[in-house]
């Protein structure tokens, strides 16, 4: 079932109210802190250090966003006719825009903390690819439910992202996924991030589908039939 932009707009405020805004705000604050503290404190960063700070800003951001699909009313609204993918898109699209904006501000802060001569060397696209790949995987994990567990997705997604990030950071140099820019490993690691982005997007699509087909409910009720006619 498709819905119009009007219904989407009318749903958005309710979804925002039900979203874990504390987690989102904390993630944003941490990201901006990592991005701007070096410049604010007058610390001159090396290129590799600036990239590291940028990555930490990203980690803070994605951990906050791991809770974006959490909804205390999830079990109640599961019976509503609004398709699951609509709810997912209505949450993920603004979250992605927010993350991109915050990360861009953090990137600008790290850039300013660099020596003016090397500012142009701070990669944008390559690190942004890391960001989108991490976001996609985080959203995928956030939308994943294990068995009949009713725990919100962030309970699983945030720890999973943290553990995966630490494991990735501990990889040896030959397979490093967080190499400094300009090193031999940089190009190969971008390919790895590209693959991860594709996997994450596929995961989001998978978790956005209905667990059971709406067109053929197991036991249609009178009220659900009324809903169907109304819509």
């Amino acid at each position, binding site marked *: 079932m498709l819905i119009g932009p009007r219904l989407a707009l009318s749903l958005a405020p309710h979804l925002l109210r039900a979203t*874990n805004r*504390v*987690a989102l705000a*904390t*993630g944003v604050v*941490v990201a901006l802190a*990592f991005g701007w503290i070096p410049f604010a404190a007058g610390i001159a960063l090396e290129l590799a250090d600036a990239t*590291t700070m940028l990555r*930490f800003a990203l*980690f*803070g951001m994605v*951990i*906050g966003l*791991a*809770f974006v699909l959490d909804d205390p009313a999830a079990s109640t609204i599961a019976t509503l006719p609004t398709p699951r993918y609509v709810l997912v898109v209505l949450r993920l699209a603004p979250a992605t825009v927010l993350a991109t904006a915050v990360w861009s501000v953090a990137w600008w802060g790290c850039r300013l903390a660099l020596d003016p001569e090397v500012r142009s060397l701070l990669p944008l696209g390559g690190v942004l690819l890391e960001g989108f790949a991490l976001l996609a995987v985080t959203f995928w994990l956030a939308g994943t439910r294990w068995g009949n567990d009713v*725990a919100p997705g*962030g*309970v*699983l997604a*945030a*720890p*999973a*992202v*943290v*553990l*995966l*990030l*630490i*494991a990735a*950071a*501990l990889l*040896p*140099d*030959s397979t490093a996924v967080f190499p400094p820019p300009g090193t*031999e490993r940089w190009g190969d690691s971008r390919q790895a991030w590209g693959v991860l982005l594709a996997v994450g997007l596929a995961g989001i699509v998978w978790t956005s589908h209905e667990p059971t087909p709406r067109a053929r409910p197991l036991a249609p009720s009178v009220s659900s039939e009324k809903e169907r006619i109304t819509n």
Partner: protein
Amino acid sequence: MTTTVSPPPTTGGPTIRSSATAAVLTLARAESWRLLEHPVILVALLLTVAPWVYEWLSGGLASRYPVMHDEDRFVQVPMLLFAAGALLAANLAALRVQRHNMVAFYSVQLTTTAQRTVAHLLSLLSLGSLAGGVVTLRLVWLATAPGAIGSVRILEAITAPLVILLAGVLGLFLARLTTALVAAPLVIVGLAMLTLAGAVGSRWIRWVGLIAFEDETVASLPPDLMYRPVVWHLVYLAALLVVLALVTVALSGARWSLTAPGAVVAAVAVAVAGAAQTAAVPHDIVTARSEAATRPARAQVCRDVDRVTFCAFAPYEARSEQWAAVTRGVLRWAPEPVANARYAVRQRIFFDSPGEMSDPVPVADWRADDAAAGTPESVPVSTTWGDREGYSQVQMIQFSAAFANRTATGSTAAIYDNAPICGARGLLILWLGAQATPETEQAYRRSIANSYGGSIVMPVLTSGSGPSFPRETADLVKALLGRPVDEVGTQVRQHWQQLADPATGLVEGARLLGVGAGVSEPSGLRC
């Protein structure tokens, strides 16, 4: 049916206290099992041991020649992943009540929130024990490797389990501070930043974090040249753990008058131990290091293998087996007078000046030390062997090429000289060094892959001293390595004199070894 629930008595005698203690212990036991089965712990454990399993299955160089007095420190790094799992799992366990909206139901329980917090704290012992088991298995496995040397220091080995306990307590502390689930993962990000700063920062910040890093750009050091105030660090971590545990219990509703005195004493211990562990390296250690870097002979033990004398610091003496495999591999293709000559190999330690990466080695001191010890013209070899950090494999080819240089030139002068070796002599040295053992060949190929422009430098102990070899020579050696070693070796022995002669050009040398087609004399590298 009507059920009446009586509130728990607020005061009581020994019976009540003992039943409360029993309830806490029972809860602790139950929470221990839940922690051990927690998905976060299982995933963390899996991710921690996965690289070790891969290393074992692939038979990698990383664990073939472990130095146990270093490995007890290295094992702490991957265990940080397990510590992160402990922090997250403990936090989630303590917040389970809020997450499942069960707070109201807990008011009818016999135990108070503070007692349940104590139970959670006790349950962390299961994770500490599991971590201790993992560390023990890892170290035992490494110690049983045929190339293992040195011994494990127990205090270093118990650091990781203590860090896991501390991480778990931190998770509980955060749970009592805030019910926000985002807090624990974000605190881990902050701790990761602190750890990273500790890995590359100055001495004081290296010891402030959970695990204490060394300057890993310095090669392995003998135990008596190391300075790691591990006892202070353990006291620091333990006191930090006590402070956090007591504050957590107090935040859970226990009387501050009961917890505050202990917390204050522990906080003082944190400050004292924290300051003590960051003290500068003692003068006697600095002097001993300087002595070992310039005149190590008096502190070393020598042993003869075949016709080569190997001198090493304790406990690296057994490494002479690996060094002997290399010297045998080089000398097997030398003509009889060269193969039957006496040689010496001496283990060296080299320290760069702070901030420098290209200091020369103290050749004059080394020569004087060798002369006094009766081992003139000794070939230097590093304390590092294998491929612990992914780049130390290069030490194998550096030693092999240095020994080949010594046999081809009859002296060690060219080992330390920065001048390029352009002619057939370079071809002889590089091929002899590369083919000595399968490991040196692998190291050679890796050096080629990592070289800029195809030329190769063979520094002494990764210092600023050492010759370079032009790209043409390196390419020819690669081609020679593709041919049967016996065939090339026979030609090498047959034409040794001409190949070792500095007047013989590279084209002539290539022709003698049957790889002359399309070869030109090197033009770059000041040749």
